[in-house]
């Protein structure tokens, strides 16, 4: 192939790809779907993941005395997100509807009862399910720890030690007790710092939308087919290979553009740092190739635009869900996590996770890049083959 | 009001914003009469008949259908009107029969009556064999015929046809024109818009020339042509001795010229003059091989009245 032919081919393919982008934005609503919608979704999801994806613990502090306040502070120190709630009924309603993971009710007279050595019961409103019982165990630990001096004071009093409540508690608190140190260590070498809310949201939506937008635009292939434009292109003095290359370039360009919009938007608006630039760029291109290949295959295989749209929606959202782009893979049970890696999304997510944690460079994501390139090659080859058959039929 | 007057409208007016589509339109149609609204695109034909059909609110004027005031909310009048819009107003994904059944029932026909009328209409428009096919499979001409058929279902005394032959093949066009003529023969009053001069000449008893939302002239073809004072032209292809002098002697003949076997005779009314012209030619001993009659044409009338051609 001479340089001149190469130029011709590049120019023809470029023209077809450009026409695809222009057609995408001819419909003004696509500005919404490609630019505004993903950014809004990342914002909402970022806020949601940012709160640890765990509803907060409600506390009804019916007492408000120093001991009760001490208990609430200790709960906060133990890592619970505390939301003050004014009444039992409100707390129960919030727990039942999942707005709170549970609600601890500190009754009025808590302080007085402690000082009078009268046992107190704190009610924990929780749903009868494992997560609530785990919360119960955790709260029990905090309560045991915080009220230990009071219990020691009670024993001291019963054993005939003289002194008021405050005095006995102070003595207990000051008493030497080596106790048991709880030492926590990470398992193995993998001690990855967890990703922030916006980072999780941005990476997952990046993949979801690249695939979704690409598959949605696949109906353009069908429109082209039905309008006979591709036949005209076919009649133009360019080889079939160039037309297929152009269609593929068009599909990939749409996916790439969507990816760039989300990457740039989330970096500018939410401060998401995408890690090693070379690694991020290559992952983006690799996933754009995968999305473009899938779109080309869909456009060649579907009979009508409506069929392609419906199928595209199903595939794009379904694969995103299965691949961990809707709920983080960490939450998946083990077999589903394995199954998730059938989708390119899971591999790309793994790759971006390596990069975003800041410790991996290009070399660190080579395995993911390899898998994605394999997907892309297979889908593009299959898509080109089917499209060629559809065009020459 | 004449006993058999089906439609009367006067001073119709309609503006869309600043654009006055219909400024002042009025005419009347009797039973069995075909009235043609002739005008170029944009003259206000569709707006006029949309107001008459009661699908468009009018800004002014009055419409009487069978003597009663008619408007968008008058179902009494709508029952008496068969409206055939210019677009192919059919559901492409339904079959011909389903389309007909829906509109028949919508016009208040009972089940049995609808069934009977659908079969009749299918026969009239020549689609009996394709009744169960989806309309989207039809050719343009078939769709046009069905489009017309839908308007006939409830046997309306007034049929409004908006350019019913737009974009049709000659065969379907002929079939449509014949159906319309037959309906007029059965006593249906027909309001017909077109920008095809030949159709107006062939079908319409009376013609209104519409331009810029006003009726510029109205009358039979002959009356309109008389406005510009044109004559009929008879062309004879003859063999034999010179015949021109004897033709010139006839009182009906204004002028006659001959050249190499073709004789042009100008008369006021070809219909009345033709037997005399042929008689004179035979008497003069020539053999007439062919006769052509050219009536003066509405195109020239239109040109004369509006200063523009019908199709621009």
């Amino acid at each position: 192939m001479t340089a001149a032919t190469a130029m011709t081919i590049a120019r023809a393919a470029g023209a077809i790809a450009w026409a695809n982008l222009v057609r995408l934005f001819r419909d003004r609503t696509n500005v919404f779907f490609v630019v505004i919608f993903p950014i809004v979704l990342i914002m909402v999801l970022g806020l949601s993941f940012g709160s640890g994806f765990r509803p907060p613990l409600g506390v009804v502090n019916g007492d408000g005395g120093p001991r009760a306040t001490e208990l609430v502070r200790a709960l906060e120190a133990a890592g619970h997100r505390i939301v003050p709630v004014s009444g039992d009924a409100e707390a129960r309603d919030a727990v039942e509807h999942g707005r709170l993971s549970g609600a601890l009710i500190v009754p009025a007279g808590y302080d007085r009862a402690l000082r009078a050595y009268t046992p107190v019961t704190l009610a924990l409103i929780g749903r009868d399910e494992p997560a609530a019982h785990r919360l119960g165990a955790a709260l029990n630990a905090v309560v045991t720890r915080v009220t230990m001096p009071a219990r020691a004071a009670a024993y001291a009093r019963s054993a005939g030690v003289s002194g008021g409540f405050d005095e006995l508690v102070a003595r207990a608190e000051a008493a030497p007790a080596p106790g048991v140190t709880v030492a926590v260590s990470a398992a193995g070498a993998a001690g990855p710092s967890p990703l922030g809310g916006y980072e999780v949201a941005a990476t997952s939506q990046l993949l979801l939308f690249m695939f979704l937008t690409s598959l949605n635009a696949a109906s353009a292939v069908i429109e082209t087919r039905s309008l006979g434009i591709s036949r005209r292109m076919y009649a133009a003095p360019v080889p079939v290979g160039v037309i297929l290359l152009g269609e593929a370039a068009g599909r990939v360009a749409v996916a790439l553009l969507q990816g760039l919009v989300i990457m740039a938007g989330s970096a500018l608006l939410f401060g998401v740092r995408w890690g090693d630039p070379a690694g991020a760029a290559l992952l983006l291109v690799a996933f754009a190739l995968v999305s473009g290949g899938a779109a080309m295959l869909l456009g060649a295989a579907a009979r009508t635009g409506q069929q392609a749209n419906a199928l595209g929606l199903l595939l794009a959202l379904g694969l995103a869900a299965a691949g961990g782009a809707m709920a983080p893979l960490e939450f998946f049970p083990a077999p589903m996590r394995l199954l998730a890696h059938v989708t390119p999304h899971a591999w790309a997510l793994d790759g971006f996770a390596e990069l975003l944690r800041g410790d991996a460079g290009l070399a660190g994501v080579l395995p993911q890049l390899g898998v994605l390139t394999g997907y892309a090659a297979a889908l593009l080859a299959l898509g080109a083959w089917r499209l060629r058959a559809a065009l020459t039929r | 009001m004449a006993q058999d007057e089906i439609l009367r409208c006067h001073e119709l007016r309609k503006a869309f914003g600043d654009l006055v589509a219909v400024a002042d339109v009025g005419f009347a149609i009797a039973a069995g009469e075909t009235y043609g609204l002739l005008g170029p695109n944009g003259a206000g034909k569709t707006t006029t008949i949309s107001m008459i059909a009661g699908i468009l609110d009018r800004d002014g004027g009055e419409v009487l259908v069978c003597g009663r005031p008619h408007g968008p909310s008058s179902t009494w009048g709508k029952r008496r009107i068969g409206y055939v819009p210019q677009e192919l107003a059919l559901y492409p994904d339904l079959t011909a029969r389903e389309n007909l059944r829906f509109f028949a029932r919508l016009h208040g026909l009972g089940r049995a009556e609808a069934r009977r009328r659908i079969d009749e209409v299918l026969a009239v428009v020549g689609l009996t064999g394709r009744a169960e096919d989806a309309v989207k499979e039809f050719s343009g001409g078939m769709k046009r015929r069905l489009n017309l058929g839908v308007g006939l279902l409830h046997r309306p005394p007034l049929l409004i046809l908006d350019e019913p032959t737009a974009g049709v093949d000659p065969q379907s066009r002929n079939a449509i024109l014949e159906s319309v003529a037959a309906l007029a023969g059965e006593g249906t009053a027909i309001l017909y818009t077109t920008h095809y001069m030949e159709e107006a000449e062939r079908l319409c008893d009376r013609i209104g020339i519409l331009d810029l939302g006003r009726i510029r002239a109205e009358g039979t073809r002959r009356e309109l042509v008389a406005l510009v004072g044109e004559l009929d032209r008879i062309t004879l292809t003859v063999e034999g001795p010179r015949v021109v002098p004897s033709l010139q002697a006839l009182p009906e003949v204004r002028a006659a010229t001959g050249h190499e076997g073709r004789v042009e005779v100008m008369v006021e009314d070809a219909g009345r003059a033709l037997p005399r012209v042929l008689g004179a030619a035979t008497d003069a001993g020539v053999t007439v091989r062919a006769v052509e009659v050219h009536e003066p044409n509405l195109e020239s009338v239109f040109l004369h009245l509006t200063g523009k051609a019908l199709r621009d």
Partner: protein
Amino acid sequence: MRATLLVMAKDLRQRVRDRSLFLLALVVPFGLAAVFSLVFRGIDAQAAPTIALADRDGGPVVTAFAEQALRPLERGGVIRLRPVAEEREAREAVERGEADAAYVVPPGFSDAVTEGRPATLQIIGDSGQGAYIARAVAESFAAEVRYVQVTLAVVDGGTFEGATLVPRPVAVEELGAERRQLSLAEGFAAGMAVFFLFFTVQFGFSSVLDERRDGTLARLLAAPVPRTAIALAKLLTGVVAGVAATAVLMSASALLLGARWGHPLGVGLLVVAGVLAASGVMALVATVARTAEQAGNLQSVVAVLCGVLGGVFVPVQQLGGAFAALSLLTPHRWFLQGLADLHGEHAPAVAPGPTLALLAFAAVTTGVALLRVGRMLRP
């Protein structure tokens, strides 16, 4: 009325013949609900975390820890306990994901504790629910040890037994609350149903614009039927299609995906109210548009935006703040809220609040749409 039924029958026949409605109203939402149910089933009802215990001490304190602190939790289904022999084994179990966390008790631990010397309980694993619970239990146990040591220090002649006899001054009692919340999988199934409902009802009222584009509207207007009958027919077609599609989707996800909706009466009322609201919103959007294409585009933007804000994709109502407040402006939120209210064993038969909210949506939007319908009903 007769004309309304005729137009509805015609419209429904057209919709049934047009497969895109079937795809968009049933196949896609159910397909997605199925995928989500498969993916999220595990997440919601997470199995109790497994905690490994490597006891290299073998003394009485460890036995007490295992028997009094860990076993009751295991019996309660909060954790699963897995004894291992070696620290290495425990570490490997955590690394391989077979255990979520592990306790390693060093040799001499019991002696250290009973003799009042510093002792360390090691936990392997620092992320996830398992590690969280392991740490909480360990700290509770540590507090207990400290208690005994403190009492012995404060009370001359105090005994271990005497100390343990004193009840804890504060106990935590779990009061079972009902779960009036959809599971993740149910939430997504319902979310998909209501999300695509907006596209299903779109085929109703907006088909006025389709008829206008195709020229058949002129014919409907020329027919001897009141215009309100036509507008009503279009609205009702969307409602009928919407109710049918949602009913099929909800029954299918109940039968095939194991979703549990509440009382049929309440769910039925909620579905009808939701469909009316969806149909009203889409009708209102349609009256703003000039062409069928414009209406379709605007409607998808509105449907998608409301879907996101209403918590179809993200549980917005749990976020609190501005987004939770904004979500109240979407019918989606009220529909999902209503289903949550109806969820659970002792849930009411109907969810009056959300149902009424949806009806209010329907009344306002449909009312405004009908006021504006005149400009649509012209050829």
